[in-house]
């Protein structure tokens, strides 16, 4: 086990070095890093306290004191975006975690067994897929009450079939390969083969799907918050900020602009990151670079 780790570690560095030669990866990485950094800093420090309402400072346009202006309660927009980033990332990350943690084993299991197990799992998958994800999330949060935790669960559940399908598709293309036969001739069972051969070979697919689902998770969280089913006040969130800004669009367009940009740039950054990763992760392309 220990030397298995050392193998992944020493190649991890080289993968990263290669990734930084890809333009889309670098741009995506910078955008994502900025958002992550903002979220990280917000734990210790924000320019203003987002829970304190200073009504005398309300509806300030962007200035040196308030970089992104203030909202109708006099809260600092920049601070709110920082804390909102934390919220968005947490929701999306846990949702992707749920999706991967349950979806990938299910998909690999379906691919390894085949037959009726595969059929049952995948038809159930289709069933979950058939519901429009956001609408069902609205349903779940409406039943169990709005809040960040329920939003996470709702988004996470709809990530499961996505990952299950990607994992199964990838695994199915690996199983008929001759090196799997060779592994079976070496007496390895389906479980061990999945861990040793299938997962490393579909890891790039999963990673890329992961960044895409992460971006979609951020969008979904913003959507849920927008309709009031995500994080509850006073916890700031990007979606809620957009909703609040909506009625004041004409007077203070900057209120909608900044959270809107935050969402767009984060999603763009994550998609570029995923793109760059999928380009670099394939060892077959390694020689050509």
């Amino acid at each position, binding site marked *: 086990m220990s*030397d298995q780790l050392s*193998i992944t570690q020493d190649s991890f560095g080289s993968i990263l070095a290669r990734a930084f030669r890809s333009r889309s990866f670098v741009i995506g990485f910078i955008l994502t890093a900025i958002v992550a950094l903002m979220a990280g800093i917000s734990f210790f420090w924000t320019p203003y306290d987002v829970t304190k309402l200073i009504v005398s400072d309300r509806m300030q346009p962007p200035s040196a004191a308030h970089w992104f202006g203030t909202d109708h309660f006099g809260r600092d927009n920049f601070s709110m975006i920082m804390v909102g980033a934390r919220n968005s990332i947490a929701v999306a990350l846990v949702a992707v975690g749920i999706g991967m943690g349950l979806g990938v084993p299910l998909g690999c299991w379906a691919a390894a067994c085949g037959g009726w197990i595969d059929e049952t799992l995948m038809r159930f998958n289709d069933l979950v897929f058939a519901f429009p994800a956001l609408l069902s999330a609205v349903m779940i949060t409406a039943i169990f009450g709005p809040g960040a935790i329920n939003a996470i669960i709702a988004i996470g559940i709809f990530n499961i079939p996505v990952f299950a399908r990607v994992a199964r598709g990838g695994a199915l293309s690996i199983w008929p*390969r*001759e*090196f799997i*036969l*060779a*592994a*079976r*001739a*070496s*007496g*390895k*069972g389906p479980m061990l083969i999945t861990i*040793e*051969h299938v997962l*490393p*070979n579909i890891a790039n697919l999963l990673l890329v799907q992961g960044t895409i689902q992460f971006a979609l998770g951020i969008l979904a969280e913003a959507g849920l918050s927008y309709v009031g089913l995500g994080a509850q006040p006073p916890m700031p969130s990007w979606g809620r900020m957009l909703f609040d800004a909506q009625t004041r669009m004409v007077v203070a367009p900057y209120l909608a602009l900044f959270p809107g940009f935050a969402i767009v740039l984060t999603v763009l950054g994550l998609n570029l990151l995923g793109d760059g990763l999928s380009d670099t992760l394939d*060892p*077959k392309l*390694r*020689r050509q670079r």
Partner: protein
Amino acid sequence: MSLLEIEGLDLSIGDSRILKGVDLSVAPGEVMGLVGESGSGKSMTALTLMRLLPEAARVSGRVTFSGIDILAADEARMCALRGDDIGMVFQEPMTALNPVKSIGEQVAEGIRWHTGANRADAEARAKTILDRVGLPESRFPLSRYPHELSGGQRQRVVIAIACALKPKLLIADEPTTALDVMLQAQILELLRDLVDENRMGLLLISHDLAVVADMADRITIMRSGEVMEAGETARTLSEQLHPYTRQLALASMHVPERSKVHAANGPNLLEVQQLTRDYPSRRVSLFTPGEPTRAVDHVSFSMHAGQSMALVGRSGCGKSTLARMILALDRPTSGDISFRGMSLAGKSESELRVARRDMQVVFQDPYGSFDPRHRVERLVSEPLHLLYKRPTPTERREMVARALHEVGLGADDMHKYPHEFSGGQRQRISIARALITRPKLIIADEPVSALDVSIRAQILDLFAELNQRLGVAYLFITHDLTVARAITDDVMVMHEGKIVESGRTADVLDNPRSQAAKELVAAAPDLHRAIVRRLREEG
């Protein structure tokens, strides 16, 4: 006056020169064989004629095709030439056809495009040409899709598309490499007939000297982008003036030296009795299951320790299914396999460990048989999983180093990834992986058919040497009789799931008695026979 004239063709991509001053000509009604090992520039030459080169390629020299300067012609001119005056047949019939279009549409497409014929006329012509290539409409309607045809039938469709407009020149790039010997013989005969009928020039590209010797009037031998030797086939191949020609011819007919024949003593290593495997076929309806297909039909044979046995037959005759069952990767429907006295049928994976340790496998495709994400050390040590006592990392490294040494690779190769090796080296790694547990039996499924002739000779030598030195028994599964002849003591001929003939390799292949074996021997290309026949024809 020649149809195609290539003079001093140079081609480079980036800094590497792919072709260096290639000269070649084809006359109408002539078959020109272009031979060389992989990477010699054969296919690049063909692509230059069609002007289908990659963007980055820079070309110089002169290519004249019936008075047209190909290298100077504009794209519109080339489009008119491609498929009309120059046809092309590719190696892989599985991917050369569009899977969502019927064969009739695909043949008619080129006819309509080039002649402006209406749909009905084009279809009528498509019908004629498909009939000509052996796919009569009564049995193969135009509405068939590629997946409904076998490999050989698909290659016929590809030839029909290429020949539909009676091109002046047909380029065939390894047209039979993906097919078994019987289909190969049929396709080659078809190509020869089409050449004679239409006085078409044929540029036949192949790595197989025997095929070219049989087909070509003249031959051009290439190596790393240069023409080594060119001339009349029979003379060139019998005189072998150029050292590389001699080297190629020797490698094609290479027979490894095997002095010691392991005699049968003690109990049999492997015994197969009445082995049968049925596969369920597609359901007729929801409630009626289809008639099962019998892939292996009551096969019985035995092997003793150190024996080298060939299993030959056409593709789809059940060879690989039989091999999988012996390796316990597939369960027999009925019958029994016993290996070193232990029956394999109905055993659980943990009970099979003992047998698996003494029985390993080498696959055909040196590219597909390794996990691209593991290093050689991990790949070669995979079967060590079967040992009772897991070796320590140091022991493991030593065992891998020894296995690599045995197949002629260095210990420092274990830190590389498989894509850093050539095809021949990978097949060596594959053999190292099979050897590491010191097995008594290695099952090799077409182990050399994806390799160039010179590499093939080396790998056959390696197999023979390991058999002599370590006493490993082999079961070689192959459709190539040259390989069977070169390296095995005994041979079994398989046909439609049954073993129809078996005996000493030389006896069976020189005097086949069963119909299937006779056909197989007749269809197998043989360099010696081809040269002798050509020399006799010329007098």
